[in-house]
């Protein structure tokens, strides 16, 4: 396994470098926006008092020169300290860890749903190319691809929560019921259905189209003809020969999109009042809660970097010809 550890060490070092640059750029970008947390808080309080705003700035550490603040922040981040949100009176790490599970549950479920359904539908469409089921699947994919997320979310709420009353319209779980164990998992699951559909349908459409075209391409290749001519069953040809090759572009694309998924979750978390870090980031941006926003960026960057490493590893499992190096 020496090659694996060498690969991991090299990739991790590279990732640390990228992370350093990301933190610097984010810090500079956020500070370029007008206004600071003290003005926002004075605005929200509906009253302004110069001394009050000055006291807030002092507490938030905004009186130090910018480069000092940046140096302190970057040093702290690489020691695992994401700082303190004076606005919320909580350490940033705690705020993020409290909200991260909800976002991971939402995005990972949506990702798995989108990938599994996308490959399944893409395969079905390719196997029945030109027939009505192919047309139905491509039409569904086109509609899902073209519908804005927030609108889809609202329409799903209108149908399943307001009209039919089958599913809850917002939130992570029912309050006041205090479910335990399996009952709680089921309750969260019911709340999860609409957000996952809303977030997942777009990506499902992307993977469906990608899988379909990729399969059709591989379908015509010589090794497939060879397999067929040596009498391999049609089902085996599809699963062992075509899919294995056709999925590579889908995996590459899925690896890219892990980052997008977190972006999309901001919208979905807002529409469904889902208490994840996407909303934490959005609120922090509006409130200029610098430390929280930077903290969320750091955590999501780490996630995306980790995801890319995992994607590269998955390649080698699917296609042994590719070696990690």
């Amino acid at each position: 396994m020496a090659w694996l550890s060498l690969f991991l060490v090299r990739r991790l070092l590279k990732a640390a470098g990228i992370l350093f640059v990301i933190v610097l750029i984010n810090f500079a970008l956020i500070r370029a926006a007008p206004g600071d947390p003290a003005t926002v808080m004075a605005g929200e309080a509906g009253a302004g008092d110069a001394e009050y705003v000055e006291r807030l700035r002092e507490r938030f550490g905004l009186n130090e020169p910018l480069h000092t603040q940046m140096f302190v922040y970057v040093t702290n981040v690489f020691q695992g300290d994401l700082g303190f949100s004076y606005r919320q009176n909580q350490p940033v790490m705690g705020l993020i860890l409290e909200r991260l599970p909800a976002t991971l549950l939402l995005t990972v479920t949506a990702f798995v749903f989108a990938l599994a359904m996308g490959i399944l539908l893409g395969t079905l469409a390719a196997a029945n190319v030109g027939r009505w089921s192919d047309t139905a699947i491509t039409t569904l994919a086109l509609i899902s691809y073209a519908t804005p997320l927030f609108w889809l979310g609202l329409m799903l709420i209108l149908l399943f929560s307001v009209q039919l009353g089958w599913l809850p319209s917002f939130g992570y779980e029912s309050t006041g019921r205090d479910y335990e164990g399996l009952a709680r998992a089921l309750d969260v699951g019911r709340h999860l259905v609409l957000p996952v559909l809303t977030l997942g349908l777009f990506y499902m459409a992307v993977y469906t189209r990608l899988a379909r075209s990729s399969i059709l391409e591989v379908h015509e290749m010589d090794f497939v003809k060879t397999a067929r001519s040596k009498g391999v069953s049609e089902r085996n040809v599809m699963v062992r020969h075509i899919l294995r090759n056709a999925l590579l572009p889908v995996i590459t694309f899925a690896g890219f999109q892990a980052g997008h998924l977190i972006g999309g979750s901001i919208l979905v978390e807002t529409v469904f009042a889902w208490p994840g870090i996407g909303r934490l980031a959005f609120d922090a941006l509006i409130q200029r809660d610098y430390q929280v926003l930077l903290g969320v960026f750091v955590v999501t960057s780490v996630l995306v970097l980790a995801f890319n490493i995992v994607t590269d590893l998955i390649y080698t499992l699917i296609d042994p010809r590719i070696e990690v190096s």
Partner: protein
Amino acid sequence: MTSKHMRRAAHGSAGTGASATIGGLAALVLATGGAMADEPQHGGTLNVILDPEPPMLILGINQQAPTQKVAGKIYESLLRYDFDLEPMPSLAREWDISDDGMTYTFHLQEGVTWHDGEPFTAHDVVFTATEFLPETHPRAGSNFRHVESVEAPDDHTVVFELDTPYPAFILAFEVASFPIMPAHIYEGTDFNDNEMNDQPIGTGPFVFDSWSRGDVIRLARNDDYWQEGLPYLDGINFRMVPDAASRALALESGDLDMSSFNNIEPFDVPRLEELPHLEVITDGYEIAAPLAWIEINHRVEPLDDPRFRQAMLYALDREFIRDNIFMGLGRIPTGPINSVTVEYSDNVHIYEHDPERAVELMEEMGLEPDDDGNYAEVELLPLPYGETFTRLSEYISETLGDVGIDVTLRSTDSAGWADRVANWNYELTKNFVYQYGDPALGVSRTYVCDNIREGVLFSNTMGYCNERVDELFAAAATENDPDERAAMYEEVQQILVDELPVIWLLEMEFPTIVNTRVQNATTTAIGVADTFADTWIRE
């Protein structure tokens, strides 16, 4: 009620003329008023919409509207106020104001305990007034500017001595202006960094239970509440729902019971009002009494000329704004003082919608139209507070364009807006400001010369300055004779209406939308920020 489809909630009215020593009378009238309507039931949990999420629940440190909604159930002040802004007992059971208007004596309720079991005494009140709020509260400086001393002759009496009569002072004891903080927790500590700041301890009918960030804040019934038999509810859940359309759907489906302030966009209100299980209430914002206006930077030509500002007002159809953008929610203002607060006068020049007069005024000024027919070009910084204000900006831009004032919209987010307005880096913007019941507390700050302070929001950002206005506001604030005070406030309203430092658009009405199973949702002038001790649910 200007708008025909608004209903008042069933409640008793406690308006009496006398201002001193009303004692328990008001509470009594209110209680019997409720009992006649229906017999209150104990039990049930209320689900209330909360947006945006408050940063913390320590009301002495943070007084944003969402903080008030939650913390107003945990903390209490000395007084509450009815819809006519007459004081009612709260932690003070009786109070006297001396004839010279300079000594305020409060007699406190006995047997009140903090949520951690410690007794509440006059020392807590003195500590809050002299140590806590002056350090943490953005309005404490002006509310207490005339206070010379605060003393506690015994455990249940507090005496405020003023250096001059200051009639507005009696309105400075609502819970967001003067939340009583526990001295035994905060005395001698750094208030902002106190380790108890995530465990609010008050005297109110509900105790803090839990806060799951981004999701829900839960309050539970205070079984040791000092008012026997209250509260009725077992608990209150405040649910964070960040999207306005989702909030409307949650009310519609019955998942949530109550919205307030600008939780629901006005254009959704008529639809929700049609539903049999929802009721719209517009009472309960008399302390806030928001007045919306176009704020104008007088440092920019031609905005420095009163005739140009008058021309803009003549060009706008404020009834159209009220009826089609705010969907009937609000009243057309006549001047700087909201008609639901004290000292309002309508004896002023009334500006009717008259676009031709607008053009005349601009020609009088010597302005000439350019090739496109525009007399002037101005930039409008929209208020980034949701869809309704965006629509308002578009209307203003269109309508002023019709009389030859070319408006460029320049959008920004709320932090950018605050930064630009506070630093005078704008031409026109919109703003709405709370009045806190008395012109001395919430109106004069916008217009007086010595409140022209760079970097401070909700100050005189226009740079308007008229010494007569300053004199009148200063004299009226400390005038103990009601008639003389009224005369001074009338004159100042006439001057301001003639000179139009800002263009008043709307006395805003916020809709409190409540599920009909909820009774006594609003009973005082702070509405949903009140204690909810007498709110109950009909099963």
